[in-house]
């Protein structure tokens, strides 16, 4: 039986988005990146924008995002994705332009580029995966690491006297006049995944409509870096991350 025959034997209720290709992902089992990639691919497909999308990948776990979603990509230097996206969108105003970045890339080394691109009202979307840790380099402390959270560079737990406070980038983004839509979502349950997809779609539409810059933060896990099973890490995220990084829309001026 061919793949098509298997599909044709029953009613098709679910399929992988066409833009998500067959390349095996390098992400750890249980990592939310795969889910968010799927949502991004689905939204681009749903919007019919596959031919007019230019995406920018970061340095971090999602450096290879360009291998999985079949749109045109540029791979940026660490933290600089919003600078690339700013130029791309200004030079190709009718394209859907988004960056896909982690917290080390966006909230630490690229803070300046992030804040200035958002506040210049660049008509782009930033997809921000916040897992409170540097995943790719082996689980070091990030600016988003929670107080008390243990990482390989704060093995006794993050403490204010030594490391300062965790940074809430979405809260900063929400007070910038250049931003249109700032939201915080998760992808650890089916309802959450649906909400996150709607948020990504809204952000992409606002950026295409020229309503300003958009930030979609996905509060995530890093079961390898956190040294927990995927199941336990989602529970830890719910109990520790979500109270500090509350979910929902922080700003939505696009409806007006």
């Amino acid at each position: 039986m061919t793949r098509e025959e298997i599909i044709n034997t029953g009613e098709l209720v679910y399929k992988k988005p066409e833009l998500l290709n067959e390349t095996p992902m390098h992400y750890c089992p249980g990592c939310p990146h795969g889910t968010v990639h799927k949502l991004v691919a689905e939204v681009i497909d749903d919007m019919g924008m596959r031919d007019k999308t230019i995406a920018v990948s970061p340095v971090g776990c999602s450096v290879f995002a360009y291998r999985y979603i079949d749109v045109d990509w540029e791979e940026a230097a660490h933290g600089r994705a919003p600078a690339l996206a700013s130029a791309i969108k200004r030079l190709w105003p009718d394209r859907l332009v988004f960056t896909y970045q982690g917290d080390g890339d966006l909230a630490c080394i690229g803070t300046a580029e992030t804040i200035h691109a958002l506040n210049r009202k660049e008509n782009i979307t930033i997809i921000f995966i916040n897992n409170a840790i540097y995943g790719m380099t082996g689980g070091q402390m990030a600016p988003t690491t929670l107080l008390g959270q243990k990482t390989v560079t704060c093995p006794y737990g993050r403490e204010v006297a030594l490391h300062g406070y965790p940074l809430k980038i979405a809260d900063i983004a929400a007070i910038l006049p250049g931003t249109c839509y700032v939201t915080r979502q998760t992808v650890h349950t089916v309802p959450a995944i649906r909400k996150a997809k709607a948020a990504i779609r809204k952000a992409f539409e606002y950026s295409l409509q020229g309503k300003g810059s958009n930030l979609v933060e996905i509060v995530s896990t890093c079961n390898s870096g956190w040294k927990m099973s995927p199941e336990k890490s989602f529970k830890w995220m719910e109990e520790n991350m979500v109270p500090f990084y509350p979910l929902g829309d922080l700003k939505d001026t696009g409806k007006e």
Partner: protein
Amino acid sequence: MAEKEVSLIKGNEAIALAAIRCGCDGYFGYPITPQSEVLETLAAQKPWETTGMVVLQAESELASINMVYGGAGTGKRVMTSSSSPGISLMQEGMSYLAGAELPCVVFNCMRGGPGLGTIQPSQSDYFQTVKGGGHGDYRLITLAPSSVQEMADFVDLAFELAFRYRNPAMILSDGVIGQMMEKVVLPGFKPRRTEEQIMKECPWAATGRMGRTHPNIITSLELQSEVMEQNNLRIQAKYKECEEKEVRYEEYMCEDADWLIVAFGSAARIAKKTIQLARGEGIKVGLLLPITLWPFPTRQIEALGRKVKGILVLEFNAGQMIEDVKLAVGCSLPVEHYGRLGGIVPDPDEALEALKKMI
């Protein structure tokens, strides 16, 4: 033939006006002395209302060069400008541009260093420009104008070379030529390419797929060493071709010369005066003026080295280009350096004294 329009403008203004006229799609920059007139001129000209060129003041030189990277990756003609400390900040981006094989133009209006240094002119970024600057094995195609006219002429040339070799091209000048006013005939208007032309000329560019069967990916990353070595070898082969085809230089009074001065940019202007003074005293001196600092006119200097008794390398630095001159001529004749530091421009008679010491 219609009379050509002559303007009296600064070197920095010439860069900006030439950019608008040569079909540049975007300029991204950050203010720094002594080159701020580039961005100021573009802002005053408002080319977005005429040619459609994008002009954006970035939050830093890091952002500027990465905006250039973003634009270059889509096949657009994009550029930035800065001066020495800002150019240092751009080194990472230039390494990425070279690694991802992207064309762009960077204008460096050099000032004295190291550190914050001075805002006065200098040529002390020679090493940084032609020996790498950023990480990895890469080169910058480097043009060194020695007049305001050449500032205007080299913008289009730099773009042509950058696109021919898919590599960043640098216009390396300094505060003398950036700030100096001279008569210039600006280049004629060349329209910006249409999106269709860009997609045809740059089939590698990330423009959005627009019906293409495969996505285009702009990256310098490759984790497999064997593949990464092949990527490097491809880039090196390109550099070899560039070295064979793109060397540019000027010879001045070299036919009967017993002695040779090698100087570029504003130092070459002083060298010409020095040569006139020397010839007034019966000393036959010629000038080899490298226009491309990379690729360097090694063979031409080697050939002239066989005809003269010694070479003086005149630079506004502590002795940088002299290393490449010595590599060209080996130990076959004396090669000396004369230069001033910290933003001081030497007088022609100082250079003449240095020459006489050799003789």
